[in-house]
């Protein structure tokens, strides 16, 4: 196979698994998430563990169930989030490491009603490569994308993602954590919320569309697309995006064609139900694809780039105009995100109505051992 030596093509010797196995099998993983969602968040602590077998070995302080906190655990993401990107006074890899590890292993005290509080900490790509030359080989900064604003916030040495069921808990916990790195400066931050979960554990974004339908739920899918290896390291991509009001005020059928799914049910325009996959090949008799050529779900579909499915775990926020999306994805190779976003830049009737004003890609180690 011939691939160009630059950018999207995997660099020789650094190839991540490219395919995600059978997409159809995602249904087998669905049952677990459904169970967790049905109970609502109050039950989540007990039920979330059903998605994966319990892990043995060194327990993370804030991993009460299985899965990685704030990534695959809890299976249904908590209602509130705060993401903070910090630049440290001492940029030495060792200093970043000890600060990040200290943050990740701290258990801030919160109120009883906070639900499950998860703390997820990542370090910047360059530091990660220095600290874990074997584990973080694929770490890179994101390139610029079409909708990036000219004053895009980026960079920083580490990211702290705090999730909980109450807004107060995430802000209290974040304040307690940032107090541990007093001479750090804030590069950017964003709070976000998720609307009440559906029975399937998805949620409605500020656009009114269901988000998180297609996700790597099985262990096989997560191995293919989320974890870089048995350490369960991953890369977290954060994008602070605004969907402009020319999209949010467009007629619903136009929005649906831009997404490729129904707004009310989430069902694909190619047929089926809420949780059905889109059918990339279905056409009307006159040859028109049922999922339009520029629909977001088609453009973002990983089959186009021959890569595994990324795990999305986004939150909403309310900008002065339009709808805010704190896009978050966990992926075992940042190139999967980059190649996907290139396709969205080439053609996407949703993404061309968005701007992004803060962005970052961080290595989230599965263990902090060096």
């Amino acid at each position, binding site marked *: 196979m*011939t691939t160009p030596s630059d950018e999207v093509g995997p660099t020789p010797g650094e190839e991540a698994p490219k*395919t995600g196995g059978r*997409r159809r099998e995602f249904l087998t993983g669905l049952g677990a998430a459904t169970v967790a969602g049905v109970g609502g968040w109050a039950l989540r602590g007990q039920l979330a563990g059903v998605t994966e077998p319990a892990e043995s070995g060194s327990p993370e302080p804030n991993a009460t169930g299985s899965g990685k906190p704030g990534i695959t655990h809890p299976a249904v993401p908590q209602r509130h989030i705060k993401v903070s990107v910090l630049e440290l006074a001492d940029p030495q890899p060792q200093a970043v490491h000890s600060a990040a590890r200290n943050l990740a292993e701290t258990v801030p005290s919160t109120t009883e009603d906070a639900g499950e509080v998860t703390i997820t900490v990542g370090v910047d790509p360059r530091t990660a490569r220095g600290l874990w030359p074997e584990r973080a080989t694929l770490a890179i900064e994101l390139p610029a994308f079409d909708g990036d604003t000219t004053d895009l916030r980026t960079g920083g040495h580490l990211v702290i993602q705090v999730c909980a069921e109450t807004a107060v808990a995430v802000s209290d916990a974040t304040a307690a954590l940032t107090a541990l790195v007093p001479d750090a400066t804030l590069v950017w931050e964003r709070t976000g919320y998720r609307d009440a979960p559906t029975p399937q554990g998805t949620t409605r974004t500020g656009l009114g569309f269901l988000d998180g339908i297609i996700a790597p739920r099985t262990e096989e899918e997560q191995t293919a697309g989320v974890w870089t290896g048995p350490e369960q390291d991953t890369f977290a991509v954060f994008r602070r995006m605004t969907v402009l009001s020319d999209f949010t005020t467009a007629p619903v059928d136009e929005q649906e064609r831009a997404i490729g799914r129904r707004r009310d049910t989430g069902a694909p325009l190619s047929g089926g139900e809420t949780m059905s996959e889109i059918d990339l090949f279905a*056409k009307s*008799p006159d040859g028109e694809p049922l999922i339009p050529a520029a629909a977001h779900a088609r453009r973002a579909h990983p089959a*186009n780039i021959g890569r595994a499915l990324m795990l999305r775990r986004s939150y909403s926020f309310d900008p002065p105009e339009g709808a805010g999306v704190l896009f978050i994805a966990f992926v075992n190779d940042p190139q999967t995100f980059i190649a996907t976003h290139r396709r969205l830049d080439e053609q996407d009737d949703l993404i061309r109505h968005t701007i992004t004003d803060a962005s970052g890609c961080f290595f989230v180690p599965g263990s902090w051992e060096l």
Partner: protein
Amino acid sequence: MSVSMRRVLAGLSAAAALVATSACGDTSEPETQAVIRVPDDATLEEAGDLVEPGGLILISSGTYEGTLEVSADDVTVRGDDRNGVVLDGGLTASNGIVGTGERITVENLTVRNYLQNGVLITGVTDDSGAGIARGPDGYVPSEAPPPVPGYLVQYVTASNNGLYGIYAFNRTSGVIQHNLASGGSDSGIYVGQCADCNASVTGNVVVRNAVGIELANASTVTVTGNRIVDNRVGISVLSNYLEAHGPTQSLQVAGNVIADNDQTETPTQASGGFGIGIGLAGAVGSDIRSNLISGNDNVGIWMTSSEDFAPIDNTIGPGTWGDNGVDIAYAPTDHAPGSGNCIETGPESAGVTTEPSGLAALGCGSDLPASDYTQPPAPDGISFADVALPDERQGLPTVDDQPRQLPETVELPDISAIETPSADLLESGA
């Protein structure tokens, strides 16, 4: 049944296969025959189970509904009259003829009004042994099995089918010749997913399809002496990740008439293509020469990238050009930039127009400057079922009851000896 099970068993372990084979050894199976006459000996659908390896299914004139599935090796499916034997899907059946065995021949008949394919020759089967291809049926490229060798599809008229007229998938060593494919909602003729297709597509007429001839992740294919007119896109060459074995390499296209591919009375092309003679997306090592490429409203040849597949080492040689929106557009993307491509249209085509301009003067040796050419939006299409029926074409010179023995490999034509055809190549059915 033991015959039709064969390919399913190939996917199982040897031990499991033994058990399954002996389980099938009961005597209630109908006996297979060397020559099956339809309708005298069997219905169209029964014929596929009854034919023995190396046998012949001979179909008499008449109209037949439903699907003929053939899984035995070395089978010949022959109509006794190209225009008189009509398999008609009635816009309800999926496929006309599905062949999964090695070295299959399909010839001298008409297939039309199928929701998917007129003739599907495939090297992929599902758990039940049925032949499948790329599509929503759960096909996973990373699990592509080894290709199945041998096929010949000739003197077939495939019209008004919802996907492809004639479709070869995950196969090698094939010849697709003297067919007429029309009204295909995707393409008239399609060769896909073969790392070494060793396939010759020659002497066919493809008209009024969304795409005339489509090649996706199909390497070592020659497309020669075809009449490719009045489609939305004449030839579409793709490299992608939806099928295995990208990119498409070593394609040769010579001696074809590729004209007026801007017909609105055709189905919409799925990604909006229109007015395009040849679209080359992410192709490697193609050689395109001695074609008549004219009257394509938007662009004669459009060379670009596809995902991370860059256009590399493609050559556009001499030929006849006229009246295209622009004759050649070179427009790879920034992140999959082209290299080693050359445009050597020669003195006979000094008036060749290019985007960016002046490419033809650069020849080989230097990297070509890129343009950001894109075509304007396409006009709406019509249903594949409503596309005008094609004219009748001459069938097999002689019809007998001898099955064909196909060779292990196909000798591909030497395109350096092929001359540019005149505009009336294969114009009428006479």
